[in-house]
């Protein structure tokens, strides 16, 4: 039951993009086509889950016992950057088709604040455990995928619409994201 609540909270109520504003850069950057947004979502799911597991273990078994918790930010970002590189190299060897699909998105993920954000947020969960942190990361990446794919679908339609001159480009995209966020606000109180 607790896990279902985590899932619903992460996907709908506290959606990582639309309510917590993490991962906004890829949200605007790769949402012009549905197909690329699906690829990006897959890459985020992959990296976010692995990164959370690794940083969680590192925090519990290295940083806390040695009293170096204040080095959290530096350690985490380095681990994530190294991890993305490793995943890229391994994927290239192990599964070329998957690499073909996700390859271009992997380097972009290092600067995706959602990955670092979720890794840090997972440490603050109530009676946190490795399983819970992992599930938390998976739920949040599903939330990210939902928001990104919805937004990309709307943007594909937007290209056919007539938009006032001043609103073209950035402003109209922000406005659409605002309306989407407003829709998600309706889920408040669900959990």
């Amino acid at each position, binding site marked *: 039951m607790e896990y279902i609540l985590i899932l619903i909270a992460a996907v709908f109520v506290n959606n990582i993009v639309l309510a917590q504003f993490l991962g906004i850069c890829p949200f605007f950057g790769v949402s012009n086509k549905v197909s690329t947004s699906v690829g990006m979502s897959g890459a985020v799911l992959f990296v976010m889950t692995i990164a959370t597991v690794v940083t969680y273990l590192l925090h519990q078994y290295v940083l806390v016992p040695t009293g170096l918790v204040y080095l959290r930010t530096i350690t985490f970002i380095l681990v994530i950057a190294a991890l993305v590189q490793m995943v890229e190299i391994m994927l290239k060897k192990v599964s070329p088709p998957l690499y073909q699909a996700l390859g271009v998105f992997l380097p972009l993920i290092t600067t995706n*604040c959602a990955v670092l954000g979720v890794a840090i947020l997972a440490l603050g969960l109530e009676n946190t455990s490795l399983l819970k942190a992992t599930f938390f990361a998976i739920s949040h990446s599903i939330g990210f995928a939902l928001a990104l794919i919805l937004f990309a679908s709307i943007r594909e339609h937007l290209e056919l619409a007539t938009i006032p001159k001043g609103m073209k480009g950035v402003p109209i995209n922000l406005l659409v994201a605002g309306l989407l966020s407003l829709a998600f606000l309706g889920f408040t109180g669900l959990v």
Partner: protein
Amino acid sequence: MITIIDQKQNFIKGIIKENPVFVMLLGMCPTLGVTSSAFNGLGMGVATLFVLLMSNIVVSLVKSQIPSKVRIPAFIIIIASFVTIVEMVLEAFIPFLYEQLGIFIPLIVVNCLILGRAEAFASKHNLYSSIIDALGMGIGFVLALTLLGATREILGNGSLFELKFVSENANTFILFILPPGAFIALAYLAAVFNKFTIKV
């Protein structure tokens, strides 16, 4: 030889023509995430300005020592060190702001504005130009965040820097201090900015 006029333009460009938020769309996460009031926006802006300035200084000083293959990880370590300093200083001296900004303080490290300036500017220019560039971009970021925070606070709460100018139980657009308001307020501010910078 870089003239004073060039330096002046170097400084001004960050504020208007290449404003990091309204024009270049860098550092959007903190921009949207913490601007529910003018004070939070200002605090976040100043914290980012500090990290940007210090990392630009260090990067431009050590640029010739770093092999170009590992420059990005090296830049990230430099930035992360200054972010840790900011984190500890805020926690010790301004705990209120530390609570309000929360997760967005460690996330300064992944703010693309800072890494972007380190890579695109500080790693190619001398110390003096890098400082001017960091100040221009940083002040542009502070102004944008404060403006967005002020807009949202005025509309959403009827106050500015915690000073209320409507009566206690007046109806305000609460929407603007909720998450959707961040997107909508920034959308209209960016549209206004478009109007003045690019001839549409």
